[in-house]
């Protein structure tokens, strides 16, 4: 199949003059700012379950979102009608909300050049379904070969190619092409009525050359081994204890514990524990947190954000001290500063809001092996799952998919069913060792009903104390209580 994407970008249907007319129409009754965001995407998915290729899908969608901002208030209209008439009509509806303004001057758009290139060697439409299916089936086999206890394997491989045009009344015109690949394996293992699951995912802003970097079959084997190993795991303990998070555990913790709380919209509404804390110590010394949209090929990478601002590297926390928040255009204006290029949206149907890109705790000085060895007892987290945070009070929770007990500096037996809860600033201040390594995980982050692709990372770290929510009736917490008396 041939991708037909040149309808919008570079084609004659929407040239600069049309965009200028639409923006002028949007501001006809006044307003501080108008913007048009046009997107055309093509996606495809291959899905294997029950040992067979069950579904292959593809789809095309295009649409435009127009917004008019006046005194910080937004009118947003979206449409799938990309004709000049359709766009002018949508612009007319958007401007409705900001009546009685004065006429604005003509708009002249000038294109913005991207600051770096994103390499994409094998575009989705150049890779046949046969090749994707071959890889998916090989992964399925590799997972099932691990053990007869593997009862189900689901393998999915998807790609997305998106072209966007963003033009605004400041005269900025940004055009971009984005390609993303995501592969997922999930496994189910069963033994004597106990069922456990395993999960692995990989992806990036790149083409199908990703398959050269990640071996799909190895991922599947890993997911299968995890499910089988967890069958023998004991129930996790309940209570507070030291937690070592291995770098391969991924960055869910940093995403939940501080990432969301540093998004400027939440800060400005008073919904973040990090409000009014710029320049203050919010984490232990040696802890730096960075959001970087420019990392090569990572799942949260972009050249332009969805408002046409350059994707950039922003140091959020430096050596324990809070440096700045993540901004989109509107929140930046409110704080009289520039956007940090974190204005992102799910699709043309959504207004851009401050979002993370690739967020990570920077590597430190401790040898990862030594971190475990110097921990008398606690929990070693090897793989994290999803999480959630209440930014107002900083309380967060996330799921642990693979964990082991540490006893006298040695990793002993696996435990299952643990969830970690904590409080953002308290946990960041409780990090007492930071490893030299760095491990990434990918995901789709949800906020206000919008999902955007992100990646998160951290080195191996140790947190002095976190609440582990397991079910085992251990003596641990009871002993602590006795000691307290």
């Amino acid at each position: 199949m041939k991708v037909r994407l040149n309808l919008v970008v570079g084609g004659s249907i929407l040239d600069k003059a049309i965009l200028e007319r639409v923006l002028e129409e949007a501001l006809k009754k006044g307003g501080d700012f108008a913007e048009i965001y046009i997107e055309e995407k093509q996606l495809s998915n291959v899905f294997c379950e029950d040992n067979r290729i069950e579904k292959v899908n593809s789809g095309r969608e295009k649409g435009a979102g127009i917004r008019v901002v006046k005194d910080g208030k937004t009118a947003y209209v979206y449409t799938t009608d990309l004709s000049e008439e359709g766009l002018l009509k949508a612009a007319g509806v958007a401007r409705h909300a900001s009546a009685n303004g004065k006429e604005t001057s003509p708009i002249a758009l000038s294109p913005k050049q991207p600051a770096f290139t994103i390499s994409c060697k094998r575009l989705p439409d150049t890779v046949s379904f046969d090749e994707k299916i071959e890889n998916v089936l090989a992964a399925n086999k590799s997972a099932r070969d691990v053990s007869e206890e593997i009862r189900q394997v689901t393998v999915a491989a998807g790609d997305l190619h998106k072209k966007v045009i963003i033009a605004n009344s400041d005269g900025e015109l940004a055009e971009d092409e984005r390609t993303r690949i995501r592969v997922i394996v999930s496994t189910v293992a069963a033994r004597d009525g106990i069922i456990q699951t395993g999960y692995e995912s990989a992806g990036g802003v790149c083409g199908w050359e990703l398959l050269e970097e990640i071996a799909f079959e190895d991922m599947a084997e890993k997911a299968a081994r995890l499910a089988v190993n967890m069958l023998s795991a004991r129930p996790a303990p309940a209570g507070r204890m030291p937690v070592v998070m291995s770098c391969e555990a991924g960055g869910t913790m940093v995403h939940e514990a501080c990432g969301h709380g540093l998004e400027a919209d939440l800060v400005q509404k008073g919904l973040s524990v990090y409000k009014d804390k710029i320049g203050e110590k919010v984490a232990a010394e040696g802890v730096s947190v960075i959001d970087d949209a420019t990392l090569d090929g990572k799942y949260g990478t972009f050249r332009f954000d969805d408002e046409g601002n350059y994707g950039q590297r922003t140091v959020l926390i430096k050596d324990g001290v809070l440096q700045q928040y993540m901004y989109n255009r509107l929140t930046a204006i409110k704080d009289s500063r520039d956007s940090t290029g974190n204005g992102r949206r799910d699709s043309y149907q959504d207004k851009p809001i401050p979002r993370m890109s690739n967020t990570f705790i920077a590597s430190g000085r401790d040898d990862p092996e030594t971190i475990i060895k110097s921990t008398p007892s606690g929990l070693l987290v090897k793989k994290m799952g999803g999480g959630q945070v209440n930014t107002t009070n900083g309380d967060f929770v996330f799921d642990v998919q693979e964990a082991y007990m540490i006893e006298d500096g040695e990793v002993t037996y696996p435990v299952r069913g643990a969830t970690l809860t904590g409080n953002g600033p308290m946990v960041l201040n409780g990090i007492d060792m930071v490893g030299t390594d760095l491990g990434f995980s990918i995901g789709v982050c949800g906020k206000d009903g919008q999902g955007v692709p992100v990646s998160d990372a951290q080195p191996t770290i140790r947190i002095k104390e976190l609440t582990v929510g397991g079910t085992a009736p251990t003596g641990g917490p009871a002993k602590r209580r006795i000691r307290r008396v």
Partner: protein
Amino acid sequence: MEDFLRNTGEKALDLARKKGVEAEAFLLQGRELSIEVIDGQVETFKEAEEAGLGLRVINQGRLGFVFTSDLSDEAVKQVVEDAISISHYTEADPHNCLPSGKYEYPVLEVYDPAIPAASLEAKIEMAREVEKVARSSDHRINIIERAGYEDSEFISVIMNTRGVYASGRGNFCGIYVFVVAEEDGDAQNGFSVMIKKNYKDLDSIFTGKEAAGNAIRALHARSISSAHLPCVMEPYVVTRFVSLLAQMVDAGMVQKGKSMFAGKLEQAVAAPVVNLVDDATWAGGIGTFPFDGEGVPSRRNTIIKDGILTGYLYDCHSASKAGVEPSGNGQRGSFRSLPSVGTSNFILQTGRPGSQELYDDIKKGLYITEVMGMHTANPISGDFSVGAAGIMIENGKLTYPVRGATIAGNLGDFFSDIESLGSDLRFFGGRGAPSIRLKSLSIAGD
């Protein structure tokens, strides 16, 4: 608009017939309005429209699916060609099938003309009102995170080459407010959302007051020690657990061994007081509609009766595989995806009415008002471990608020430990439940 959708669908089906494949066209046209207010002013006003086609072909048992938002003749032709071309890559499955025959659809009230008839000003006023009520109901409500009004309407058309034709128009409306209460350096969230099929049922005063009350009661929460305690859960929290049941009774999941309810039909899976139904004909339900996403008529399905698992939910594929009739649960979220098993109005039924609170005779327990990270619970293994907040129960009374606890266990034990259910059934979207009382839960705290 319905005519346009029907004609577009006809074109797709004609092309498919000419190519000798079975096909189903699902067409959806939707409109939405959302108004968000801050300090009595409209902060975001959004109006939108979308339309699209999702085409499923079955080519000698092989499945192909393609969607498009472009409904031009040329695009529709391309969609049919792509779907057929894709079908060559999937494996044949005798259970890939489309419903056939002349269905009679139930007549249900699913469209309220009062929603489009209400003026924009009235809707803005309602959003302002819910914000105002929340803010003014207590001096400690210092921040309104979001408050607003939304409505949505759609026309859906399903037609296939086996003669099924179903079309319908539905709408609903809602208001919401998210607040923060602050006092002495402590800040706590509270929210309330009301979604209704009828415009006249929206109650901004109730919604505003409830959100404020939820935030206030959580102020100055303490942590608690780890323990096993009896618990009472509010309807909202119960619906979160009931949502996990939705995947567990999905016949597709069951058949693939991805549900802990696999092989449990006619067995006890919950306490004898537990009754669960999925009812797409429930009057006023958000999930109420005459037909499902495959054009199968809606009906009421009993899932758990007196604690015994009596049935699963089926779409056409899983029903064919199990050798039963589809239950009318082939749901679709949009034109962008294939139908799959889903719930309509999924309801945990109320217990016996009584004037007593469920916690009246609990000496020490936890009244749970909030759970966090529910998406991490595992409906396959049944393991869950989620963050929880609530109010301590002491000698039958609600005393001080609690936060930062984790509750954990297995869903099998959870549903078997339900001792009693309240009479306070409430819906949150398409999920309804009353309060419940649990014998004991493992709580991790300090």
